[in-house]
C-alpha cells in the first residue's frame, strides 16, 4: 500500500479508535504474523475499546474494502487463523478485557475478548466457580477466542454440544450491524434482563436461526465478537486426580463406560511425550519422564460437590475401580513418579512458561482433527509409521486424545516438536506435518477447524458445504471485509 494511502487509512482509523490505538510499528506488527515467517505483515493494528468502535471499524471496512482481521489472544499465533493478508488491518481486541458480569447463582460470566483463562479462572474461583479450560492454554489465550474456535475443554461431561462452553454473544457482523445471539438478543437490554432473572444462558437463536453457530468456527470471517457469556461450573468441594497407565486399546475399553456414565470431570489421554510436556518444565526432565512411561496415560478427575462430597468421590472411585478391573487396567494416584497433586496443579490453570508445547524442543507443529475413540489407534499407528518415514523421532511427537461431547467424538492432536533454530528440523517437522495431515484426512480424520493450509484440503472434500457456507457469508459479510481468504472464502 502506498505511503499516502497508509497515512490516510491510519487517519480514518484513528478517527474511530483514537490515534494511540492505531499502530504500524513493524516490530509490533510482527507479533501478528505467523511465527514461522511465512505470510505477510498487516498494514497496521487498531485496538478498539468498545463495541461502538468495533462497529465503526467494520462500517469503514465496508465503505473502503479494507480487510479486517480480528484477534484477541496474544502471540504466538501458530495456526494461522489470524494470519493477515497483505494490506490487512488487525483488529486487536485485547484491550476489551472486562469481565462484565460474574453470576454465581446461574454459573455464568460475561467476558470481553481480551479476558484470558487465567483471569477468568481466578475471578470465578472467588465465588466458588471454575472456568472450563482447554488443556493448558497459553498465558495470553483469550477465553472467547478459544471457545469461538471450538477448542476442546478437558472436562467432557460438561461438553454437551459443540458450542460449549460458549453461550450468548454480542457480535458485529461483517455488514457492520450489531447483533446479540441466544437469549441475550432481547427483549430488553442486558440490565433489564438481569432484573428479570435472566442470565444469557440460552445459546440458541434467537428464533429459528442459530446465529452463534455461524460465527463460531468462522475464524473471524463472519464478524467480530465483542462479548460473550460463558458457562462456568461449580468448584468441587473435593477433587482427586487419578491416572490409568496402559496400552491405548485398554484405555479405550475403559474409557467408553466411564464416559457414557459421565463419571469423571477431567478426562484426557496423553502419550508419554505429551504427558511429560504437560507435567514437566525442562527438556531433560521431559525426556526422562517420557522414557519411563509405557503406552498412554489417562488422566481423570473425580469430584464431590456441595452435598456429601467425600461420599460422592468414594462411590465414584469404587465404581470406577470395578470398571477398571473389567478392562484389566488400574487406577493409580501417580504415574511414573508424577504425583496426583502435580497433575492437579498442572491442569488447574493456563500453561506455565515456556508454553508446554515448546518445552521439549522450542517449537511445535500441531495437527488435530476430530474422530471417534475407537478409530484413534489407526491414526496413532499411521502417525508412527509416517514419522519413521520422515525420520522424525516418534518420541518427539506428543499425542493428545480429548473426548468431547460426552465422548461421542474425540479431538485427536499430534504435536510435532521441532527446534525452530534448526532449519532442517523445522523442515522435517513441516514435511511430516503436511504428509500426516493429508494421510489423516484420507483416513477419515475430520478437520472441523481447518486452519491455514488445511482449509483447501478440508473443503475440497465437501463442496456442498462450501456452497452453503458461501450463502451464509453473503448474508453476514457480503463484501468480504472480514479476515479475507480464510477457510473456503477465497477471493476469486
Amino acid at each position, binding site marked *: 500500500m502506498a505511503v499516502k494511502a497508509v497515512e490516510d487509512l491510519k487517519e480514518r482509523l484513528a478517527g474511530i479508535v483514537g490515534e494511540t490505538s492505531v499502530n504500524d510499528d513493524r516490530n509490533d506488527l510482527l507479533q501478528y504474523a505467523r511465527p514461522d515467517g511465512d505470510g505477510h505483515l498487516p498494514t497496521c493494528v487498531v485496538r478498539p475499546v468498545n463495541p461502538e468502535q468495533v462497529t465503526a471499524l467494520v462500517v469503514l471496512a465496508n465503505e473502503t474494502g479494507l480487510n479486517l482481521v480480528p484477534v484477541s489472544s496474544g502471540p504466538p499465533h501458530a495456526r494461522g487463523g489470524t494470519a493477515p493478508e497483505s494490506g490487512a488491518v488487525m483488529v486487536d481486541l485485547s484491550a476489551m478485557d472486562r469481565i462484565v458480569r460474574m453470576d454465581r447463582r446461574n454459573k455464568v460470566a460475561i467476558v470481553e475478548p481480551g479476558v484470558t483463562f487465567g483471569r477468568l479462572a481466578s475471578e470465578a474461583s472467588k465465588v466458588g466457580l471454575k472456568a472450563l479450560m482447554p488443556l493448558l492454554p497459553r498465558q495470553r489465550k483469550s477465553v472467547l477466542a478459544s471457545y469461538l474456535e471450538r477448542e476442546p475443554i478437558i472436562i467432557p461431561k460438561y461438553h454437551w454440544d459443540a458450542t460449549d462452553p460458549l453461550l450468548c454473544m454480542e457480535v458485529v457482523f461483517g455488514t457492520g450491524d450489531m447483533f446479540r445471539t441466544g437469549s441475550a438478543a432481547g*427483549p430488553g437490554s442486558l440490565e433489564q434482563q438481569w432484573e428479570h432473572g435472566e442470565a444469557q444462558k440460552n445459546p440458541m437463536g434467537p428464533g429459528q436461526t442459530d446465529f452463534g453457530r455461524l*460465527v463460531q468456527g468462522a475464524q473471524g470471517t463472519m464478524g467480530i465478537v465483542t462479548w460473550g457469556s460463558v458457562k462456568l461450573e461449580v468448584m468441587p468441594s473435593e477433587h482427586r486426580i487419578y491416572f490409568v497407565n496402559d496400552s491405548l486399546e485398554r484405555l479405550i475399553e475403559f474409557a467408553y463406560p466411564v464416559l457414557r456414565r459421565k463419571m469423571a470431570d477431567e478426562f484426557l489421554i496423553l502419550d508419554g511425550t505429551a504427558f511429560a510436556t504437560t507435567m514437566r518444565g525442562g527438556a531433560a526432565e521431559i525426556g526422562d519422564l517420557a522414557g519411563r512411561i509405557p503406552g498412554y496415560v489417562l488422566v481423570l478427575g473425580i469430584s464431590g460437590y456441595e452435598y456429601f462430597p467425600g461420599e460422592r468421590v468414594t462411590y*465414584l472411585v469404587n465404581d470406577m475401580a470395578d470398571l477398571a478391573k473389567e478392562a484389566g487396567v488400574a487406577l493409580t494416584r501417580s504415574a511414573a513418579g508424577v504425583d496426583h497433586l502435580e497433575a492437579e496443579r498442572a491442569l488447574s490453570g493456563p500453561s506455565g512458561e515456556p508454553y508446554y508445547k515448546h518445552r521439549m524442543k522450542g517449537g511445535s507443529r500441531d495437527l488435530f482433527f476430530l474422530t471417534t475413540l475407537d478409530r484413534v489407534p489407526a491414526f496413532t499407528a499411521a502417525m508412527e509409521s509416517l514419522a519413521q518415514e520422515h525420520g522424525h523421532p516418534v518420541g518427539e511427537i506428543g499425542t493428545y486424545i480429548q473426548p468431547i461431547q460426552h465422548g461421542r467424538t474425540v479431538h485427536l492432536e499430534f504435536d510435532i516438536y521441532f527446534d525452530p533454530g534448526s532449519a532442517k528440523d523445522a523442515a522435517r517437522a513441516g514435511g511430516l506435518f503436511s504428509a500426516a495431515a493429508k494421510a489423516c484426512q484420507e483416513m477419515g480424520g475430520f478437520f472441523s477447524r481447518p486452519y491455514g493450509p488445511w482449509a483447501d484440503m478440508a473443503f475440497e472434500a465437501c463442496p456442498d458445504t462450501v456452497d452453503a457456507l458461501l450463502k451464509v457469508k453473503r448474508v453476514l459479510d457480503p463484501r468480504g471485509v472480514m479476515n479475507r481468504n480464510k477457510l473456503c472464502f477465497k477471493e476469486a
Partner: protein
Amino acid sequence: MKPEELQKLPPEVYKELEEVVGPENISEEPALLDGYAWQPTFNSSPDLWVPRCAAAVLPGSTEEVQAVVRICNKHNILYKAHSTGWGTFNAVKAGGIVLDMRRMNRIVEIDEKNMYAVVEPYVSGISLQAELLSRGLNCHMIGAGCGASLLASATSGVGDGWDGISMSYSPRNVLGVEWVLPDGELLQMGSLGSHGTWFSGDGPGPSLRGAMRGWCGAFGGLGVFTRVAVKIFNWPANGDHRSEGLMFDYLPPLPENLKVFMVVFRDRGSFAEGMYKIGEAEIGYIQCRNALGMILGGALPRFQRKLPGVPAMVEMLKSMQFCLTHIIAANSPRELAYQEKALRAIALDSEAFVLDMGQLPLGGLLFWGLVKDSLPPLIFRIGGQFSSVFGHDETWDSSILLNRVGQEIKQKWIDRDGMIDDLADNAWMFLQEDGMWTHCEELILYDPREEKHVRSVNNAIAEAMISAVEHCQGPGFMLLNPMVRRMLSPMMSHYNFWTKKLKKEFDPLGLSDDVAYCSEEDVEEADIDLENMTFDIPPEELARIFEERISVIPAPREMAQ
C-alpha cells in the same frame, strides 16, 4: 400466478411427481388431503382446519425427496415436508404440496460405543428407544410424546423433554445431518459431508447447524431433512420390562438402581432453591414439575371436572402444586444410595418433603411413563386439547417469574369459564443439562369444540406474549406466528431480518413454505388478531411495554436505508 393461488396441480406436474414416487404414493383426493388439513393443536381458528394442500406425496428415499423438490422448483409450487405431522405448523399454504415422510422410517445405524443413532424422518422416539434400552442406551424424548419424530424435533421443531436434565434438548443433540436444500440440492453436514461419517455435525469452519435451525427450527420452511444422527445416552437399567396393561392398568416394577420420587416444595422460592441445588449436585435422570391437578385430570377427568365445586379440595391440591417428579438413575447401588441421600438432603434444606413413589403402585406407571414418554397424550384426555405459552429456556429464576405471571393470566380466563380449570399452577418446567438452563411452558387446557374456549385461549396467548415481552423473555413457541415475529423481531436484535436473508439465499424462489418460519405476512390460520381481542391490556399500556423493550441493538443498516 403466485404459487399459493394454485389450488390444484396441473396434470403434467402431477404426472411428473407420480413418476418419481409411483402412483401409490401420490394423491389429490380431497378427502384424503383433508387428513392433512385437520390440525387442532395450536390452531387459533375455531373450525380447526388449516388450508388443504393440492396434493400429498410419500417419498421413499432421499433421491425421491430431491426429485420432488426439484419439480416444485421447476413449476413454482410451494411445498412442506412433515414427519409425524402434529400441529398447525405442518400445514402448507393452500395450493402447495405436502411431503409426508412416513415411508422413510428406517433406523440407519446405532453406534453403541460412540453413542449416536442415525434415523430417518419417521422414526419416533418410542421406536428407537425400544431398540436402545436392551443395549443399555436411551434417547431424548420430547414433550410432544414418544410418537413424535426424532428427526423433526432435532432438525425442524422445538425439542424439550423431561429428560432434559440428562439428555439435553433435541437441537443440541444433533450430529451429522442429511438435508435436501430448498432448491433440491443435497447438503451433508459435518463429518458426513467430508467422509460419510456421522459423529460430528459442525464444520469444517462455521457450523451450518446454525443455518439449519435456532432455538427452534424452520418447521418445514427450509427444505427437507432426510437423515440425522442424534446423540443417545446412558440407560443404567438392564433392558426393558414386560408387564401387561396399557396405561392406568399398567403396573410394572421399577428397575434396580433407579427410583422415582415426588418432591413437594412449599412455594416458588423454596422450589427455586431446591432446583438450583439439584442441578449442581448432578443427580437427575428425568424430572419434571407435575402439579397434582394435572395428574388428576389425566387420570380421572370426570373427577377433575367436579372438583372446582369443592373449594377445600382445590386448596389442598394447590398446596401441593410445586411438585417435582424426579427420577434418579444410578449405575450401581453405591451411586443410588449417594443420589438418594443428596436428594433428600436438598429437599430438607429447601423445606420440601420427599415421597418415594416406588413404594406406591402408581410409581411404576409414573416411572415408565416418564422413561417411555408415553404420558403426554394424556393431556388430550382432559378436554380434548391444550395450548402452551412461553416455551421459555433460560434460568430457573426467570422461568419461575414467568410461570407466576402465566398462571395469573390463565386463572383469569378459567374464572370466566374460558378454559378448563386445571386446579393448580401447571407450568411444565424442568432443568436442562444438569441445570445449565431451565425450560418453562404454561399449559392451558381447553375443549376445542367449544368456541368460547378457542377465543379465550387466543386471548390468553396474546396476553402471555405481551407479558413475556414485559418480563424480557423471548416469545417461545409464539414466534411460529408471523405477526408475532413481525412485532417482536425489532425487540430481539431484528433477528428475523437476518433469518429472512438466509432464507432467501437458501431458497431463492421461496417455495419451501415459510409461514411458520420467517414470513411476516398476515396468515389467517396462524394470526393473533390483537385488534379484535378482548384481553385486558389497555392499548397505551401495550405501547409502553413495547416501547420499553425495543432493542438496544440498532436496526440493520440495510433495513434503515
